[in-house]
């Protein structure tokens, strides 16, 4: 392909789009689903409701899996038992988000992190957000602790943990 060759395609400029120069058809739809959570995630959500973080142990590789799952993907066998782990952990990695999920700008930046949970196997973490801390103070390996919603507001959801905050030493 020579560089100068004209390629097919008709770009629409921003102004042409905004002024609806070209015709289009709009369709708006709200698709609804109710995903069966299954045995492992159901148990995890029940635990969150009680203010506890639960994992599942595989008795072959001896890993404690968090978030829990019914099967060990490495050994390809059913996991064996529930294990309660701590609600503290350390930051594996973090980021500061200035945008919402529709790409619009946030009013206030949000700190997101992967948190390796204490007493789970090394590297076992989950995604959550941080609170009560300035972005500039956050660092990899920082110790953090879950801040729970009050008991009567917990519904069995990942958001039963409001956020993680730095653990005072």
């Amino acid at each position, binding site marked *: *392909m*020579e*560089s*100068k*060759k*004209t*390629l*097919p*395609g*008709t*770009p*629409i400029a*921003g102004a042409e*789009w905004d002024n609806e120069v*070209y015709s289009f058809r709009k*369709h708006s*739809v709200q698709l609804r*689903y109710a*995903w069966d*959570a299954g045995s492992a*995630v159901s148990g995890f*959500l029940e635990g969150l409701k009680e203010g506890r973080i639960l994992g599942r142990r595989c008795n072959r590789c001896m890993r404690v*899996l968090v*978030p829990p*799952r019914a099967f060990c*993907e490495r050994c390809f066998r059913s996991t064996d038992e529930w294990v309660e782990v701590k609600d503290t952990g350390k930051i*594996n*990695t*973090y*980021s*500061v*988000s*200035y*945008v*919402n*999920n*529709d*790409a*619009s700008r946030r009013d206030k*930046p*949000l700190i*997101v*992190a*992967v948190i390796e949970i204490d007493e789970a196997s090394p*590297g*076992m*973490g*989950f*995604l*959550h*957000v941080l609170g009560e801390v300035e*972005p500039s103070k956050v660092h*990899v390996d920082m110790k953090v602790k879950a801040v729970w919603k009050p008991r009567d507001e917990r519904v069995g*959801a*990942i*958001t039963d943990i409001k956020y993680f905050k730095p653990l005072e030493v």
Partner: protein
Amino acid sequence: MRRVAVVGAGMTLFRHRMLETGKEMAFEASRMALDQAGLDIKDVDSVVLGSAPDAFDGVHMKGEYLLDGAGGTCKPYTRVYVGGGTGVFVPIAAWWQVASGVADIVLVVGEEKMSPLLPHPQYAFWSIFDPILERPLGVTLLWIFSLEMRRYMHVYNVKEEDIALVAVKNKRNALDHPAAQLAANITVDDVLKSEPICWPVKRLDVSPTSDGAAAVVLASEDVARRITDDPVWITGVGWNVDSTYWTNRDLCYPEYLEKAANMAYRMAHISDPKKEIDFAEVYDPFDYKELHHMEGLQLARRGEAPKLTREGVTQRDGDLPINPSGGLLGVGNPIAAAGMMKIAEVFWQLRGEAGKRQVKKPVRRGLAQAWGDLMQVGTVVIMER
């Protein structure tokens, strides 16, 4: 295993919004690829299409919808899908049709029309996350990549400046690409000072959302020898998908990509990729990904890619040109079409048809790679003269 050649390639412009429908873009790219191969649609035994989430187009089973544009009417036709890795996977799925003897000529089409989704194509990515454990947090695609970028920077002590060099190089390379959406002469400082989106990811670290299509034609050895003096052979294919649980692995190094690459290297009898691969089109939706992928492909040691970039090794006139096309950062990122653009670029480079983009050193063997899912899939194709 029959030998399989690439005999033609085509693509549309990549732009934020195109007037053409998905079907029409698929048609334009396919027509151009068939023309280059000197073939007609009636010569085609089978069609394989790649396209990423249906949520962009707002069409369920969009492979079926795109079917006639991609030339699949009254033919064996199917769609394959490995998230962002799709673009480089479509030719793999076509390769096994030819290598197995089931088909002699396969048309391979990558199409993406991201613009129809309102308010913004990014919104589709919310629905890629675990509906129970992750979506309630308001997660965005940018989060996970910035988390990976941060981890990579932390483990190998990589500076934002080093990463920005990739954006500078690729956007400049794209100045010579006629399809390019975001070609520009920018500086490291421009990247560092661009608007933070999800720190450490800033506006100029990221590829755009795009509409576009690209296509290639694959042929068996008999057919290829008959229709062209200049076939480019696919000598290695590989792909690999890691565990869904992305928060359970160390994001600093893509093990799945290493395994995908090793699968392709074994097939192509490559033992020292750094020496034996002449140039590569690696997946660069974010600038750090080029570095990450060079390491996963073992074109650089772990943590060494920033150094090679600083030293100019990855420039078009360097020892190991990376993304001479301008990559996704410069040419644009219509997901499945972007991966196919890389396949097309390797094809054009190997035939010496890349015009001003032609890398300086003589090239005999190139590699195209894509990546996707929850930072989880690697797809690799090796092509040779």
